Structures are given as C-alpha cells and as structure tokens.
C-alpha cells in the first residue's frame, strides 16, 4: 500500500470548515441511542476549544429519515430545513453544523438543489412564509460535527491525555474507519478526502497515534440504510451487510471501529450482539466483539473524560477491553449508576458476546 497515493487524492478534496460561531443541530437517533455523545461534543467545543456553539431549542428534525424512507416528500423536507435556517438566522449565526450525517447529506442536497434551481428556493421561501411567517438566510458554511473535530484534531491531541497506542505492545492501535454514506457519496467534493478514500476520520486517527486499516469491504454499507431495516422483515438485509463488513475486517484484527454517523455505530455495535445471538458468531478477541466508537466519543477518551460520562456504558459491545489497551481507567461499580448515583438497572448478559458486569 502506497500511502502517498492516497495523500495525493486527499489533496484534491479539501473543503472550507468554519472556525467558530457554530449553530448546532442535533440528531434524532444519536441522543436516543447514545446519550452523552452530543453532550461530549459540546463539552469539547466549549471547554477545550473555547468555541461558541449555539443551539436553539426550537429546532426540529431535518426529516432526513422520513425523506429517505419516502414518508416525507422533498418539498416538505426542504421547508423544514428552511425553518432550521430561519432559526439559525434569527439566532444571529451563519455557520451551520450538524450532528447527524444524514442531516449533513440532506442539507447539502437541498443547498445544491437551490443553487441549481433558484426557482425552487423561491418557492420554499414562499411555503415557509405562509406556514410560519419566517424568512431565512442560507448558511455561509455547512459542516458536519466530525469536520469540526477534524479541523481541531491537533489542538485535541495537544490537550490529550492518551494516545491510540496499545500500552502493552507499544504499537499503534489498529483502527477501522467507516464514514456515513451521506457524508461524501452524494457529493464527493463536500467530504474531506472525497468518497473513495475519505480522510476525515483517517486524519483524526493519524493525529492521535493510531494506524488505519484498509480492508476489502471498507466501502460497503453498514446496514443502516433506512429501507434496509425500518420494516422488521427487511432487517435480514441490514444485518447481512454489516456481517459482510465484519467478515472482511476480521483477518486484520482491528482494535476498534471509528465512525462519524449516528446510524453506523448503532448497527456496527448492535448487530454484533444480534449476530452472536442468532448464529453464535463473535468478532474481535476472545469473544469480546470489536468496540465501535464515534469521533466525539474518541475525542472524549483522548481528552481523559470519564468513559461513563461520555455514555460508553450503553454500547452493546463492551469498550472495556479497548480502554484497558490504552490504559484508561474506569470505575466499574459506577457503570450503571445515574448521574446522581442511583442504580439504573443492568442489562442481562448476552449468551455469546462477553460483557463486563459489576460482579
């Protein structure tokens, strides 16, 4: 593998990422399944990087899931997005940052549509005005939250307490990176590094001391395509897609998987549990599974935040083996306590996937 070959391609796909004063919109899926992750992002932005990140509670979903499942028509989606832009404008911001990758894809798609078809933009302005009395400016910059973490990866490394190195062997951790489909597949130019060899997560891994793995099914979907799983009967397609990736990455013995989408880590994590229950297969070492992290979670542990504050306890594939490899301490008795110290209950241990419990 000639890494210089990839560097030449990465050079071709660079984009402008705003440096401060972000208007932040949340993800529908992320907060439900990974509580603590978006809070971690905000904590990093405010406490470590001293940036102005503003959220307005009046913002809604972008309707990306609905749009991509043919439940919400494009006109409606565009009008909902127009309202988001209106709230951004009214709050005095012009740099739009999304937590969700599907949102990022949808906002990009809508801005491109309006760019090529100004009459559509005009029509949506009319819709929004009639429905809510609102007007809006388009954002000056649209970035995904992972773009922002990428932009400040050196600063995070500088403040970091840990590196992505196996403390027992001294070697860099072997990491699989997986970007969300909506990040650069539709508009390769809008993703750092393009669609073929994306760089946004690779850049973070390189800066934080890890080693990136390229494996044959790197490009394959993780299974979170909405049509693949929304209806229970279809979920076989979704889990088959994820399994294809695991089978392909297994010979490379990755230490963990890094993603930048709310959906990808959800299934890369949960489907390992489902596969172990349905067919008894586990990946990773000793039946522990391959832990799955997102960029904010990883940045959080690099910076030395408590793993349970980040929300890693809700991962179905236990992250403890990874924390052990890096040398990050964690307090197992506190794992399933709420923030005010009450026991929130413990999941039952799965039959095949090893699980760390408070003994």
């Amino acid at each position, binding site marked *: *593998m000639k890494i210089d*070959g990839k560097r030449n391609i990465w050079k071709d796909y660079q984009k402008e990422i705003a440096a401060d004063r972000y208007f932040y919109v949340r993800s529908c899926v992320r907060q439900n399944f990974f509580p603590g992750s978006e809070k971690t992002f905000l904590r990093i932005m405010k406490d470590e990087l001293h940036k102005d990140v503003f959220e307005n509670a009046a913002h809604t979903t972008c309707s990306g899931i609905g749009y991509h499942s043919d439940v919400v028509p494009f006109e409606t989606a565009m009008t909902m997005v127009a309202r988001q832009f209106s709230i951004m404008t009214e709050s005095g911001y012009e740099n739009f940052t999304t937590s969700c990758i599907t949102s990022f894809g949808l906002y990009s798609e809508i801005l491109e549509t309006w760019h090529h078809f100004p009459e559509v933009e005009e029509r949506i302005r009319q819709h929004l005005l009639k429905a809510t009395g609102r007007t809006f400016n388009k954002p000056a910059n649209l970035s995904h939250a992972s773009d922002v973490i990428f932009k400040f990866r050196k600063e995070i490394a500088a403040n970091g307490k840990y590196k992505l190195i196996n403390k027992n062997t001294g070697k860099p951790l072997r990491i699989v990176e997986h970007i969300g489909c909506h990040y650069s597949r539709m508009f390769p130019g809008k993703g750092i590094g393009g669609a073929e060899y994306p760089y946004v997560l690779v850049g973070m891994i390189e800066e934080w001391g890890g080693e990136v793995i390229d494996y044959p099914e790197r490009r394959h979907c993780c299974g979170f395509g909405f049509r693949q799983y929304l209806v229970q009967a279809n979920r076989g397609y979704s889990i088959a897609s994820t399994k294809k990736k695991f089978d392909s990455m297994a010979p490379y013995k990755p230490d963990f998987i890094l993603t930048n989408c709310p959906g990808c880590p959800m299934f890369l994590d949960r489907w390992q549990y489902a596969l172990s229950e349905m067919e008894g297969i586990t990946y990773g070492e000793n039946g522990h599974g391959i832990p799955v992290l997102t960029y904010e979670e990883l940045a959080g542990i690099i910076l030395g935040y408590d793993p349970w504050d980040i929300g890693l306890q809700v991962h179905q594939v236990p992250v403890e083996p990874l924390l052990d490899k890096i040398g990050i301490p964690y307090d197992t008795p506190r794992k399933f306590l709420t923030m005010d110290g009450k026991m929130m209950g413990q999941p039952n241990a799965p039959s095949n996937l090893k699980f760390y419990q408070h003994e």
Partner: protein
Amino acid sequence: MNDKVIVIGGGVAGMTAAGALADLGMEVLLLEKDTRTGGHVKNWDRLFPSRRPGREVMDFVGKSMGSDVEQRCNVIVNSIIRSDDGFSVQLENSEPVTAKSLVIATGYELFDAHKKEEYGYGIYDNVITSAELENIFMEGKKLTTHDGKTPARIAIIHCVGSRDEKVGNLYCSKVCCVTGVKQAIEIREMLPGCEVTSFYMDLRMYDRNFEELYYEAQQKWGVNFIRGRLSECAENPDHSLVLKTEDTLTGRPLKLTVDMVVLLVGFVPGAETRRIAQMVGLQSGADGFLLSADEHILDNSTTVPGVFLAGAVKGPACIVNTIADARATALQVKTFLSSQNAV
C-alpha cells in the same frame, strides 16, 4: 529549390511522414521534444495482432527517413508565426526555423490511471498499467508481484479511462481491447501456471486477424473472459486484490481475488498536441483530439492552409492506420506545395 516542410513530433506518424516527404522531394526537418525519436511505439515490445516485435517497425520507419531528413531532438516549440511565405517556428534556445508547410504529429498520451481512484493505481502495490506490463516484457524482466512472488491469477481490466463519463472521456480508445487480448496471451505464454481473467464491456476486435487472436486466446491459451466492468478494487493483507464486477451474462455480482491487476489505459489528447494546436489556431473536437478539414475526404489537412495532421493527434489509432495516414499526409502536403508553386 526543395520546398521545406517541418514535421513536429517524432513518433511513428512523424517519422513516417518525414520519410515519405523526403521521398517526394521535400526538404524535411523533424522536431522531437524527447531525447530520442520513436514516440510510444519504441516502448512497445510486441505488436498486435501477430505479436511481431515492435523493434522491426521502429527500424523500418527510422530507416525510411534515411539521411534526407534533418532530425532534431530535445526541441521545445515556443510559438509559430504564420505569414504569406509560410511558417516560422520559434524554438527554445535555438534560432527559429521556417517552412512552407507544417505537419503536426505530436500524438497522444496514455490516460493517467491515478484518476480512477476506485482502481487503486498508485495506492495498491499490485495494480499496474498495460504500458508498465509491456515494459516488463520489453526489458525481459520476470513478471512478479510487488514483493517478488510469481502471480497465480492476473486480471486484465478493459476500458480504463475510455468510454467513461466520470473522467470526461466518452470515446473508445480503439486499440486497448486487442492489446488486452495480446497481453493476456503473452502472460499465459510467460507463466503457464497463471490464470488470466479479462473483464470487459465489449470486445472490440475490429481489424484483420483481431477476432482470430481472440479465438486463439480462448482456445489455445485458456484466457477467461468475463463481461462486466470493474467497479472497485480493494487490497487484502497479503497485497492481493479483491475485485468486484457484475457477471452480466448471468446477471449476478461477482467477486474474485487476484495477485495482480493490469489496467488497459486508453488514449488522451496530449498536452503537447493541445499546446501546438493553439499556436496555429487548430480546433479540437468534443473529445479533445484535433479536427481535420473533413473527416472522410480531407482527413490529413486542416482549416489552416499549409498545416497538416498525421496520426493520433486526430484520435486513437493503431500503427497500421497511422503509417498509412502519415503517408497520405505526405502526399497531401506535396499536392498543396505543388499548387502553391504553380501560382
């Protein structure tokens, strides 16, 4: 007084045109930007369809210029000035040269395979181009993987950089299909234990003995042909390559691991061609290659009186056609100059 003609470009087209012009009594100056003449064909080991040595053609074409053609290498053309008397070609670090007529034979370049990002050229160690394979044959080197092993399976990929909207080349490069069949046979000949699979969209066996070569590749050499365009290439830990195509004849996606991949790169309009064309005011077609005065009946002349074209400046061409074309160009130049002199 001999009429002076300058031929710009010392590949097969330029050399053939120069030799033919000299035979017709012109005073010929051949300008070549490289350190030696020969263009692309000097790098080609054996030529389709008979697989005869490229050296033989180069020797013949070289000899055909005899001592009558003045050849200058390492020449850079800076600009061309047209007047009633003819053309003044301004050179870098040299006195300008003048002529009554110009032949543009600056040829083509091979498609830069780096642009097909999904094929991993320049990234995965065992992905090479057809030109690099031909070089291995030419230098008599052993055909091995990047870490010196003998390959057990090689894939040849057709249409790399041609017939491809994504890289901006809609046209067919014509000669790559037969080159692929030729190289498949040559690999099988060199490494009888190595399986060769060619992935194609169509097999363009357009000229004499090409279809017979395909027949021979299947019957005698057992080359596998799978109709389906390569969509992505990925690397295994041992640096072998995983290919994904569709087996269109069964309608199913297909996966194959190979030790090496050979990309059949197509023709693109050369940077020199575009540069020189601009200097004399020549138009290009939508495909980027130069336009002649009439595609059927005046394919050697241009809309600029006195400026003629020969060879792959006009688009993908094989050696047979290029030699015939260059000779025709010489004749057109002669006719032009005779009519000029008659005035």
